[in-house]
């Protein structure tokens, strides 16, 4: 690591004219960026504007187009080299986390340990160090557990703690949408850690679509549009609306709040979706009902059971208990049957459970319902293209290239396709798990409209989300989970951010024992 004493003015990281071209598409277009010591610098922009590409360049995953100049603490930096990044003290939490499911937490932790190549790793030492680091941040995660067995939030936690707890303090910590699946208090925990880091002289590059979060946390904000930098401003000089305008290049037209919440789940309508006594993983004997036209939001902290609820209801795996649609029981563990009965599900683990990687966007979009693009049992390419075109427009997929491999789209755009696939089937029951993770503000509004629209058209919708604002936006009712079971139901005027957070955080009497996550107030 460089020992040069950097002057206060000299940025920790300085990019000049950085471009990255993928085939025909310029993902980054001569981007300039300075990050100073001790600052939290946010980069915001719409889906597909090039944020993750920037992060991957810094991490050495991609190599930049020739002609750029990069410096770390005033010294020339070899952008596109993983070892240079590591040596310069850059640490990463990637959008897809970059964790290896089949390895244990501890093994993932010390992947990059500053250790001679062939010297012996002590497993016990590794476990205890990983355990300690996680504990320091307030996470109770077994370092010997497989990463694949953890919940999305726990995995994010592992990735964050891994980046923060190296041999030495990172010079620059780069986080790409770390909060996409973190519930409020968990996010707070992260922010505290970031502030501690900057206070101690480290710097942070932070990417998020939660603009409130960005405004509250970042010192400086750089707005990127279509691979180009729009501006860099101090966050205190900025309002939420102004930021959205900078991102989209236009103001966000406010949605009419009335239509969604206006349709209360009147108890005289027969429930379309009934869940009785479902127990699996993090859930105990869950009962719930959703009526046609209703959007039931499910809130809860990490470890409350929220992460398991959608999968269980949608029958992703077998479980005990009964799920019925219009009184007809559906077999758990048989998604095809569920889908046929009108139950559609968008899983939260996008890469693992939703993307047909290397297949085209078109194939990803149409897979769940091919009949409507067939003529006499033969697939019609023409119908399929038209249908795909329609949905790409409805969901504002960028770039609108239906024959491109899904892997080559940005995370947010992939998410839109996953939702499109589901909505195409016109399900009578919609089960959504983190439906807008990684989706930008503009597209988020679009998706919310689609969800509410589906409900208005008579579907019963269940939305599980760590994003409380989102729940308030779309839900008619909100169920708050605590300690693996429903604790409160909020209806009508009670559906507010404040009420939900209050309910989520209500102190618990007994601490759950067999729990890898936490569900108590971290400050408390």
């Amino acid at each position, binding site marked *: 690591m460089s020992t040069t004493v950097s002057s206060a003015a000299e940025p920790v990281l300085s990019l000049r004219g950085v471009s990255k071209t993928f085939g025909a598409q310029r993902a980054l277009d001569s981007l300039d960026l300075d990050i100073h010591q001790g600052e939290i610098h946010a980069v915001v922009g719409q889906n597909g504007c090039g944020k993750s590409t920037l992060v991957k360049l810094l991490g050495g995953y991609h190599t930049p187009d020739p002609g750029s100049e990069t410096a770390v603490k005033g010294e020339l930096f070899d952008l596109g080299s993983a070892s240079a990044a590591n040596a310069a003290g850059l640490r990463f939490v990637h959008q897809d986390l970059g964790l290896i499911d089949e390895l244990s937490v501890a093994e993932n932790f010390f992947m990059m340990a500053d250790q001679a190549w062939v010297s012996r790793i002590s497993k016990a030492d590794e476990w205890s160090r990983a355990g300690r680091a996680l504990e320091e941040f307030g996470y109770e995660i077994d370092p010997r557990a497989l990463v694949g067995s953890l919940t999305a939030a726990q995995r994010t936690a592992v990735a964050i703690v891994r980046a923060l707890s190296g041999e030495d303090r990172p010079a620059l910590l780069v986080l790409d949408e770390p909060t996409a699946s973190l519930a409020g208090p968990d996010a707070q925990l992260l922010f505290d850690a970031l502030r501690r880091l900057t206070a101690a002289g480290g710097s942070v590059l932070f990417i998020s679509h939660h603009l409130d979060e960005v405004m509250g946390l970042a010192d400086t904000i750089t707005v990127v549009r279509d691979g180009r930098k729009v501006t860099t401003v101090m966050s205190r000089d900025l309002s939420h609306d102004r930021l959205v305008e900078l991102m989209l290049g236009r103001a966000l037209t406010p949605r009419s709040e009335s239509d969604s919440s206006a349709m209360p789940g009147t108890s005289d309508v027969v429930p379309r979706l009934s869940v009785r006594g479902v127990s699996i993983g993090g859930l105990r004997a869950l009962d719930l009902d959703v009526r046609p036209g209703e959007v039931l939001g499910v809130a809860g902290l990490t470890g409350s059971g929220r992460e398991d609820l959608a999968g269980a209801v949608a029958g992703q795996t077998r479980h005990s208990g009964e799920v019925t649609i219009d009184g007809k029981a559906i077999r758990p563990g048989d998604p*095809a049957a569920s889908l046929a009965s009108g139950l559609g599900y968008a*899983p939260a683990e996008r890469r693992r*459970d939703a993307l*047909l*990687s*290397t297949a085209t966007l078109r194939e990803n979009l149409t897979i769940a319902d091919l009949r409507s693009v067939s003529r006499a049992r033969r697939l019609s390419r023409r119908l399929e293209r038209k249908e795909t075109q329609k949905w790409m427009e409805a969901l504002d997929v960028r770039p609108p290239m239906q024959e491109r*491999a899904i892997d080559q789209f940005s995370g947010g755009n992939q998410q839109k396709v996953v939702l499109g696939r589901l909505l195409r089937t016109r399900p009578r029951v919609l089960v959504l798990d983190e439906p807008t993770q990684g989706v930008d503000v503009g597209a988020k509004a679009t998706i919310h409209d689609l969800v509410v629209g589906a409900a208005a058209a008579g579907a019963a919708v269940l939305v599980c989300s760590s994003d409380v604002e989102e729940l308030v936006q779309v839900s008619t009712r909100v169920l708050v989970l605590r300690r693996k079971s429903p604790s409160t139901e909020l209806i009508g005027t009670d559906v507010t951010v404040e009420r939900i957070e209050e309910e989520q955080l209500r102190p618990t009497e007994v601490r759950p024992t067999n729990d890898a996550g936490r569900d108590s107030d971290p400050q408390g």
Partner: protein
Amino acid sequence: MTDLKSAASVLSPRRASVLYLLALITLVFAITIPDLFLSEITFQSIARSQAVVGILALAALLPFVAGEFDISLGTNLALSVILVAWLSNAYPGLGIMVICLIAVLVCTLVGFFNGILVGKLGINSFIATLGTSQILAAIALKISNNEQVLATLPQAFTEVGRGRFLGVPNSLFVTLALGLLLWYVLQWTKVGRHLYASGFNREAARLSGVRTERVVIGTFVAAGAIAGLAGVVFIAQVGTFSNSIGMPFLFPAYAAIFLGATQFNMRPNVWGTLLAIFTLALGVQGLQLSSSGSGFWITPLFNGAALVAAVMFTRQQSKRRAKVVDEVPSAPAVSPQPDPSDDHEAAGVRADTVGR
């Protein structure tokens, strides 16, 4: 593949390197040994000898598309051959049609057994079918008593097996008809789409309503049946069972599938597979015809070099293109080794696509 433009792009050197290899081979030998090479016999003998390999490759293609290997197909073919040979001697009263049906049925059952092991019990397909393949070899050994077995076939049957129609060996018609059928199913039906989806991401496909378990079992059942058919075609051509048959077809079949997967729509596909088989065979034929002396080493050398070269060519083309051009890709296909603008990336995705 409906409009001209995409057809042209499908025939670009990058997407059809094997076609160019085929042209090169034909050109070279047409110049160096025109009389020997450009004779009907050359094409007759390739068509005859590769028809069965082609059928077997099509059998292997189905599980492969769904992300699974079937190593047992070679011995399953052998099982079909020994069953026909044995039954034709032991129970001639059954009639050749019934005998062939029994053989294909048994092979289909073997495929079902594989399907249960892999699709239902979740055993890795490579190891499961490796095991089955050994068991089948044992059965064939037992039935044949480790001897060559001459089948007692009605003359009409062998005449059809060895005959031609319009100058094309009948066996090749079987291969082509089967190719057409599988192409239609894979490319134009829901089932085909479900197969590919199960190969791309099994869990995502399942959650999208694909009955992946049935799909996987189904591909193994179909593969078994087709291998049985390949055995019937084989014995109609040759008339004899020997213990060395079957397994040796497997390598060229998989080589062709892999090579074919770098062609046209850049995923495992029917025409790429068949094209690869016949191109490699034509090259070998040409070399055998033109080499003098003890050139026993030339055949493997050509096979190896052609395989590596064709795949490498596909990759290099795609790289060069990514560097120079800025057109928008228009063909309705996706590379299993996605267009890399840098090679790191490609290495990252590759392992999950072809060659599961």
